[in-house]
């Protein structure tokens, strides 16, 4: 009979091994990163532009200029373009955040040549037909109006716009009415100023050969520069972090959405790796203190977590949860008491060891396969153009961090009076 009360021995990797991307340069200077890995006949190309919403003159400009690229070029209509991508079983995904705009195309290798040609066309020569713009605006407005019915959306938007201020590029939020004012000329000017070779990095991942790399050169090696004279700003002023309490009444809400947090620092900051570990202990995994306390002990919520939202020139720490309206205040009390505990009591060795092991497993999972690897490499690029030593450094910090250092981090960054608290829900219970 085996003794089931004794856990099998476990071991942890002493070093982090991962394949690095090969670096190529296209004839117009665009950097191409190549991750050739995987067994299935598939690949993905990601175009990462310094063209996020922070570079726009009016709300929605960046978003519309990117999202409407596939809605018509000088040679093809919106319908022809979607027929083309769909027929070849490819998936086009466009994502615009504050700092970056990313266009990704996934396809089977056998269809890649057909797909990348069209991708090149929509990136180079979108015409932004008025009719498509007006349909996009109408749909966008509707979707936003539905989103704004969610307490989680209300709390999240209030959180970021209060932290940075509504006028700050990281705090600005589009309103439903903004969709009525966005014009074709604004899309064109954003495209010509930011969608250029000087703002682009390309990542190719999956199973492919020299032929596919040559196709990237063919389709993007002739992309011209964007006209924006000020290339990539080195900084963006972040005034003191918004703090205090914001409450948004949503009549008849069953749950309150809670966001508590503060402005922190970009990932280049020396405290980043240590704070990442502290965040994991607090709310960064299923067994975190917040989950154990507020879900597993009290049953106030289906889930609670804390996370670090990175920006190119800043970073945000946030705790997010939705709780039954009657549990709103008790949850907030517990959140602050967990922060206090981290400031005043050293993390026990046993818990620290557990979190270290969990995080090492996380790093391995982040490099599990071509596409997770591509995502991890894009994340390096994103925000701060970090190199691989970023992961080595995190790995090293995980192995060596002490409870004293974590307490120092908590006292430096997790003070209740420096937090912003946003709640969207109902006071009536």
């Amino acid at each position, binding site marked *: 009979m085996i003794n089931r009360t004794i856990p099998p021995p*476990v071991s942890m990797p002493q070093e982090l091994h991962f394949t690095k991307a090969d670096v190529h340069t296209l004839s117009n200077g665009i950097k191409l990163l190549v991750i050739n890995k995987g*067994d*299935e006949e598939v690949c993905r190309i990601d175009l990462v532009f310094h063209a996020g919403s922070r570079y726009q003159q009016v709300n929605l400009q960046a978003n519309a200029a990117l999202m409407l690229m596939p809605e018509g070029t000088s040679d093809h209509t919106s319908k022809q373009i*979607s027929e083309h991508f769909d*027929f070849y079983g490819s998936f086009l995904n466009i994502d615009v955040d504050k700092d970056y705009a990313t266009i990704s195309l996934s396809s*089977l290798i056998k269809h890649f040549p057909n797909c990348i040609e069209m991708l090149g066309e929509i990136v180079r020569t979108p015409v932004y037909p008025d009719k498509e713009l007006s349909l996009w605006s109408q*749909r966008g407005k509707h979707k936003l109006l539905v989103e704004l019915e969610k307490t989680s959306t209300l709390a999240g938007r209030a959180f970021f716009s209060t932290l940075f201020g509504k006028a700050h590029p990281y705090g600005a939020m589009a309103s439903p009415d903004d969709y009525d004012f966005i014009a074709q000329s604004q899309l064109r000017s954003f495209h010509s100023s930011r969608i250029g070779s000087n703002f682009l990095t390309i990542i190719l991942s999956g199973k492919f050969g020299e032929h596919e790399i040559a196709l990237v050169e063919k389709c993007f090696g002739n992309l011209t520069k964007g006209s924006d004279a000020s290339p990539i700003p080195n900084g963006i002023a972040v005034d003191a972090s918004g703090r205090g309490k914001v409450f948004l009444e949503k009549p008849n809400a069953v749950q309150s959405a809670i966001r508590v947090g503060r402005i922190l620092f970009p990932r280049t900051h020396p405290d980043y790796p240590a704070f990442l570990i502290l965040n994991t202990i607090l709310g960064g995994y299923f067994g975190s203190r917040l989950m154990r306390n507020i879900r597993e002990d009290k049953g106030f919520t*289906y889930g609670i977590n804390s996370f670090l939202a990175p920006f190119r020139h800043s970073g945000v720490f946030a705790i997010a949860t*939705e709780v039954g309206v009657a549990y709103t205040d008790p949850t907030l009390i517990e959140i602050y008491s967990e922060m206090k505990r981290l400031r005043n009591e050293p993390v026990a060795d046993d818990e620290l060891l557990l979190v270290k092991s969990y995080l090492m497993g996380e790093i391995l999972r982040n*490099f599990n396969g071509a596409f997770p690897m591509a995502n991890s490499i894009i994340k390096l690029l994103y925000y701060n153009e970090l190199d691989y030593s970023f992961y080595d450094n995190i790995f090293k910090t995980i192995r060596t961090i002490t409870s004293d250092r974590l307490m120092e981090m908590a006292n430096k960054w997790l003070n209740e009076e420096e937090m912003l608290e946003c709640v969207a829900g109902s006071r009536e219970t």
Partner: protein
Amino acid sequence: MVEFHRFTLENGLKVIVHQDDTTPIVTFNLLYNVGSRDEDPERTGFAHLFEHLMFGGSVNIPVYDEPLERAGGENNAFTSTDITNYYITVPRDNLETAFWLESDRMLSLDFSQRSLDVQKSVVVEEFNQRYLNQPYGDAWLLLRPLAYKVHPYRWPTIGKDPKHIMDSNLQEVKDFFFSYYTPNNAILCLSGNVTIDEVKHLANKWFAPIPPREVKPKNLPKESAQIEQRVMEVTRSVPFHSIYTAFHMCHRLHPDYHVVDLISDILSNGKSSRLYQNLVKGKELFSSIDAYITGEIDEGLLVVAGILNKDVDPNDAQGAIFEELQDLPKSLNKQELEKVKNRLESTFTFGLTNSLDKAMNLCYFELLGDANMINTEVERYRKVTIGDVQRVSSQLFNVSNSSTLIYRAEKR
């Protein structure tokens, strides 16, 4: 081609091994053949509540998550109408931890009253978060009982009423466990950096000693053919009207299953699809519209669901949907069918790049009858002809086979 090896332990546990030495991680996926369709109609939501209780400690191991996290592992689970699926990803050197944890909770749970009390509350909050505190969140709570009158698919996995969850007791938890959580009612798949010998050794060590138990037989009532259109209207505090129309379709192993799946793709998979091009862009009736199948093992549903544009009358919108559905068999061409097959092949192939997806699929296909269906599935879609689509869509899109939920926006 996904290569795999299969064996069955004496206690009935089926084990599948797929080797992939390009990854430092192993995925451990364990499927139990029990879902919300197996529930007592007075205890709906129980299979899902039970999934939560599986993390509340087992007979020899007081907490489940901690030792796994200590091994660098991560886990989660989901419950559907048909199955409950548990999965772990763990660095390959610590694989035995997964065997140890999962075999102990298959052996027996801790059955703690405290865990039951807390998880009841957590699940009620999940119910609130997903179904009540979201615009249109309760649509499926309304649509299922409209479409099904006797089959247990008439309630969603979360349950039809939180009261059922709150009323459940520890004896019911025990009964449920011993009726379904047994090696002869489960399928295990290991995918990743493992060898067959290693898996055989570990499966024999940890799972073989668990005795088989009698599994409660599935005597599920069969839904009779719907002969009359059903319509239900509700009014809620949402910004726009929406419509959900469900049609009864065949079961998962019926030869027409893949035909219906492709029909839903012709309707709404991708921006070039019919409903998007004609009703969102052409007629501007909807701001979003989707068609999909529930993909369930027993007879499922094909659903068309959309949010209407402002000032569009729901009756007009519904009429336009039916026009599209009736037009499909007449206007379908070869290119369009080829397109949805290509998209399907692509989606399926991308799924194979992920070891968790692979492991889940291998278990699920084994449950359906043969894990090797993972290698022949695309072929079954490829064989569908225009004639198949015409024949099946004419049967399916009958007004008398439809259940429509009109979800009206309250005037504000």
